[in-house]
């Protein structure tokens, strides 16, 4: 999986949660109040299933989840991918 795929899959997941709204890749999902705690848990399960690694205690940092780009960056780091976007 490359970084573009991480972005694409993360974008599709977030878009589905936000009723199909077109979300900018850098928009802060939590600060704008677009998502809630239910989304936070669904996001953990999505990342674990889709990208194939466990989200652990030390990963609990909003900087890892606050935007689509942040989610993809986080996944890329966990997967040891080079970010070239």
């Amino acid at each position: 999986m490359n970084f573009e795929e991480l972005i694409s899959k993360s974008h599709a997941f977030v878009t589905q949660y936000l009723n199909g709204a077109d979300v900018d890749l850098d928009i802060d999902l939590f600060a704008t109040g677009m998502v809630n705690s239910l989304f936070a848990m669904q996001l953990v399960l999505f990342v674990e299933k889709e990208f194939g690694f466990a989200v652990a205690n030390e990963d609990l940092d909003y900087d890892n989840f606050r935007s689509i780009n942040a989610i993809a960056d986080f996944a890329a780091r966990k997967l040891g991918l080079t970010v070239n976007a």
Partner: protein
Amino acid sequence: MDIQLSEKQQSAQDEFRDFVDRKIMPFANDHDKQETMPATLIQEVADKGYLGGLVPEQYGGNGMDSVTWGLLCEEIGRGSASLMSLFTVHSMVIQAILKWGDESSRERWLPRLATGEIIGGFALTEPNVGSDATAIETNATLDEGQWCVNGQKCWISFGQVASLFLVFAQTEGKSIALLVERECDGFSSEPISGMLGFRSAMLANIKFDHCKIPESNLLGRPGFGFSHVGGTALDQGRYSIAWGCLGLAQGGLNASLAYAGKRKQFGVYLNEHQLIQALLTDMITQAQATRMLCYRAAALKEQADPSVIMETAMAKYFASQAAVKISTDAIQIHGANGCSDKYPVQRYLRDSKIMEIIEGSNQMQQIMIAKHGYQSHVMNERRQAERAKRETK
């Protein structure tokens, strides 16, 4: 969706049923009247390895799959919803530690939770805080490697006997989840009696008065207590409750089928009266629909699919309503006998009502489920529009 039980699951179900029929069913009404759960029975379910059902084998548990755990909850729920609530909260603590504890926390707590040496309790609700869990008033401050906890929690299942509580608090405006041992100085509990249902669930109000907790007892990180640690625990709780409600529903149905087959009115058995058949038909169908939702949640849980959270919420929502409806009809079929404590159906109804309130009231489930439905609708419309656009080209 495959709902065929494996040989191992079938064998486990037979064992659970036999245990519940012999050790729980005959005594559940008495426990309900006495508003207590004998320590010997708790020890017995612990000795059977049931309390450690969700603990992986590497930590000394049974490592049950989602269906087997569900089957266990169904049978325990059929026998005693109060005892079922122990399985619910105990497994919520286990799941929270399993997911958000570090390795030393898992090694420290899980083996003892698996054997029942430690009984887990879930401490979220407060006198002023129910559904709005973000408004928690219990406070914790970190000072020299220790959390100092002050506050109170209410309606805590098995709060009279639990030895390790998963406690939600605020620290500097952020939500945290802490493991608090009963033995800590400043901890106190007060038994609750006179409840509508869950009478033998050893309910208690608990207080923390400057309780000093090791810093390492924090699960997750500040800011993630309710959303992630609580979210994990509550999802597990709703899953267990859905299956427990299936057991309540099946219990009410079983009692009604038995009663309608042995009591005569107007010269024929009740089950030959068409209006009784109508009631039984609805009960059978509701129980079967509940079972399907529970199995669907189990399948998604095994796959760790993100949709499991919503599907579990739906299962809990439907199952708790079905349990209320079925136990209400069960009382109707039993007539005055059903209102007597000589029969279990009155207990089923009282316990079912509690199920509509706990681990997220059904009104909170409705908000979640309706929103989810709208999301799915919008995304389906969008996909159809994109497909039509492609076909036009």
